């Protein structure tokens, strides 16, 4: 038994042995170790999209797009229909593979080589354009499934909720205001409630980067105000990317706005800046003129 413990001690993965530490190996000094599974945001940005191109049957939905998102930032992305906003999110979350270009999460993780579940596990949460929750599960179960924990097959089979995890669920329930609906089947929720539940599921995953595709579509004015408050409160601790068509909503978030058009960045700046940008005006007016 003792030998086994010794062996375990030797095999521990969370420790860097002295003999690899800097003083013994001077040539590594100054180079910080790349730690697998840990996001490296030391340079500021959490997401680096560089020269990314995606084409569907020759049509370039994303055309040489370069975009950086800083850690703790709340970024709004706007753009006419078909600008490539959802496709961009598909590429970040591993649903679509870009034809060329790179997508890095922190400085070390190449998202184009990871699959969807791995990307979710390292802390990127995504809300779909069409709100998607698990309709046959209760609100509670939806949140439980999203819980940040070991999600491989065997641990899940014998999983039990710890008190701490229960508290986490309660906390998220409070944030999304669905405490009264906790045992209701998610399929019976209103549209706005479904949107919130989905955001709540993202929060359960303890993500670092939240990608939120059209969160206020179909919400009442009051509901979208509350959503704006929620997203604003999430920034700082999380990085949040919001895609939205509703200009009032984007204005109420009042952060950096990026305008996408035909798969590339058309303009970037504050809401007032981009709204007065002649290129942006042309794109939006051109669209309404049709």
């Amino acid at each position, binding site marked *: 038994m003792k030998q086994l413990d010794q062996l375990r001690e030797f095999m521990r993965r969370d420790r860097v042995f002295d003999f690899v530490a800097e003083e013994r190996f001077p040539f590594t000094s100054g180079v910080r170790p790349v730690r697998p599974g840990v996001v490296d945001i030391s340079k500021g940005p959490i997401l680096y999209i560089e020269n990314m191109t995606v084409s569907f049957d020759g049509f370039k939905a994303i055309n040489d797009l370069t975009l950086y998102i800083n850690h703790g930032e709340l970024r709004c992305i706007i753009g006419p229909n078909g600008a490539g906003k959802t496709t961009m999110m598909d590429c970040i979350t591993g649903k679509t593979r870009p034809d060329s270009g790179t997508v890095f999460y922190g400085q070390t993780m190449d998202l184009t080589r990871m699959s969807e579940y791995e990307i979710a596990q390292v802390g990127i949460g995504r809300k779909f354009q069409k709100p998607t929750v*698990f*309709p046959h599960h209760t609100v509670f179960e939806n949140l439980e499934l999203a819980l940040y924990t070991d999600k491989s*097959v065997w641990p899940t089979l014998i999983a039990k*909720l710890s008190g701490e995890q229960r508290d986490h669920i309660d906390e998220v329930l409070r944030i999304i205001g669905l405490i009264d609906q906790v045992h209701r089947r998610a399929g019976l929720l209103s549209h706005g409630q479904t949107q919130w539940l989905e955001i709540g599921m993202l929060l359960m995953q303890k993500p670092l980067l939240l990608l939120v595709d059209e969160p206020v579509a179909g919400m009442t004015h009051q509901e979208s105000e509350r959503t704006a408050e929620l997203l604003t409160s999430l920034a700082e601790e999380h990085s949040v990317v919001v895609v939205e068509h509703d200009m009032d909503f984007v204005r109420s978030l009042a952060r950096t706005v990026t305008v996408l058009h035909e798969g590339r960045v058309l303009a970037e700046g504050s809401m007032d800046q981009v709204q007065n940008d002649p290129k942006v005006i042309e794109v939006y007016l051109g669209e309404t003129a049709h």
Partner: protein
Amino acid sequence: MPNKSLFARLFASNRGGSIFLGILAAFAIIVPVFNLAVPESSALHMSTYTVTLLGKYLTFALLAIALDLVWGYCGILSLGHGAFFALGGYAMGMYLMRQIGDRGVYGNPELPDFMVFLNWPELPWYWHGFDMFWFAMLMVMLAPGVLAFVFGWLAFRSRVTGVYLSIITQALTYALMLAFFRNEMGFGGNNGLTDFKDIMGYNLQQDSTRVALFLASAIALALAYLACHYIVTSRFGRVVIAIRDAEDRTRFTGYKTESYKVWIFTFSAVLSGIAGALYVPQVGIINPGEFSPLNSIELVVWVAVGGRGTLYGAALGAGLVNYAKTFFTGALPEVWLFALGALFIVVTIFLPKGIIGLIGKLKNKRRAEKAQAIGLNPNAETES
């Protein structure tokens, strides 16, 4: 709610399942008594033929539960589950063949009759070990399990779903049928494996052996039900349902959905194999016809009739449809296939949740009427 005690999960808060297990236990007591203890002259005596017929239904019920696990809970409509049943059956059949020993027509102590007939000099390598019961039982689970694992791994990893998946499962069972029809495969070709004598040294023709096989089927069905119920009420089960309802969402929530699908598919195949192994000694034969695509389709009808996604509904459907089949094929053999087709259409159109769903609906209606009668606002929304 999660974190219930095991007992509560399996029995107390599982009314339908408890009723099902109760009925099964009643059968397990009544059938042996009426067959073995009640004298043959009595009107209450149950013939051994009936015992075997009921035992056969139980193995079908087990197979139906296995299919319900993947279809009802994970949305994988397998049209080839009969293949796993047949593989389990063949593994058992091989053991039973080796049990015959030198009592075959040709009296060869080593080789089954059909191999002697084909002038084979010795036992093929894959027949070795089947003289040992434990080895055969291992193969009963391993053969379907490994096939399902490999098949599932290839199919689910390439994200084959829906109709395409159904079609390739159907192709799988069809291909196996063609293969097993060939004499060179070494499984008795066309005729399959038959003329069994003993199982673990007990004569298969004896009443007591038949009753023991019936009991074994009942116990296997009960255990399989409990195992499946445990699985579907665990978080694993909730993930599986989530995959059925919104696979993309499940992936983006951090689950490697293909692993979940592979494992539930494999477990289901193992259960099907066990069902096949219990079926073969009771009917006394296994031949390539068991791989027939039609069998797998019939199986889907059983589950649809009983009601998907409840487990015991599938068992009920298997029992009822097969009872009807026994009746029709006896009375009006040419009508059966039409009746089966009509049944499927009626159920899909009018009873999407099968008989169990119908019972639930009637109950809700009665409850609502009662509530109205005493002046309460009927709570239209029921929660499961």
